[in-house]
């Protein structure tokens, strides 16, 4: 998998989505959060692919392979995909209790 530029995201826009964690891929060169977001606001249910940094980078910010677990209900803020597809670049996340992740 080749490494890409950030041009695919709308860097100046932020969108917040809530959903259920389907999978958290703890891999190089980017970790990926797969989030099932229920239908709402005229949009159908969708699986969002949310890109985080490499484990090298984010583990030093407190992230772990287990920070997101399948079934967790989370609220995630992202820079959305420019082309409108469900996904984006990770900005921040809160757990079901409203606490900022990762828990420090």
């Amino acid at each position, binding site marked *: 998998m080749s490494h890409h530029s950030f041009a695919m995201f709308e860097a100046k826009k932020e969108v917040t989505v809530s959903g259920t964690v389907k999978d958290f891929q703890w891999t190089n060169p980017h970790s990926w959060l797969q989030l099932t977001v229920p239908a709402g606001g005229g949009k159908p249910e969708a699986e969002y692919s949310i890109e985080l940094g490499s*484990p090298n980078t984010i583990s030093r910010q407190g992230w*772990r392979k*287990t920070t997101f677990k399948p079934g967790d209900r989370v609220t995630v803020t992202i820079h959305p995909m420019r082309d409108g597809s469900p996904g984006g670049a990770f900005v921040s996340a809160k757990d079901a209790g409203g606490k900022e992740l990762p828990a420090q």
Partner: protein
Amino acid sequence: MFGKTLLAVAACVLVASPALALPDWSGVWSLVGGTLYDRATAEPKDARAGDPGAREHPPYTPAYEAKYRENIARVAADRFPDPISTCGIPVGFPRVMQVVDGYEFVVTPKQTWILTENGPNVVRIYTDGRKHLANDLIWATYTGDSVGHWEGETLVFTTIGLRGENGTIVDRTGAIISDQAHGTTRLHKREDGMMEAVITIEDPVALTRPWTVTKLYEKLKGDVRVMDYACAENNRNPVDASTGKTLTLGSDGKPIDLDTAKPK
């Protein structure tokens, strides 16, 4: 006053005790033998990795023997892209222990580094007492996570966290291991001056028993310096992404059809 000086000298001697003396592995070294990983079980005996049909005999489970045979067929068809031919990707463990070109074994009190000219590649072995990365932290990499300790002048290190099926290539015959592989390597300089690495891989998914291979390195003489190795520079063997086939480019930059090319 003299008594205090004597105490100070004694304290210095104690601090510089043999327990902290590390071996001299200086120089640039070169792998002895080819890059077929388990030469003791090579078939045919003088097979070179990359020769069509060349293989070794790891103690594979039936499932991994089947995967190996598929890879052997891919190699024969030039359809086995690997870290060497795709460029810029670490060759990974254990393959990093058997690349061509120069090796440096750099010993420091808290880490030992195996630096390969080819690649380049770095194996960092932490000897400061730290343990392997915990399960909720470790992520799969080509080179893995290595920690070790000294037994006299032998460095014993373990390696975990490999990519396995998703990227670990043991050699160009197509040999693979799983992401559950656990390496134990004993590295030391022999009496005859050769560096020796005894590498044991245990893999509950891919192997039916431990698989041990020994690699030897000889010291290069004269003014040897390690320079860049740039796989992508003038690379005549790119992989065609659409077909997965490794091409051979002629001097004009166009692919040669090896099946029909005739010797001049």
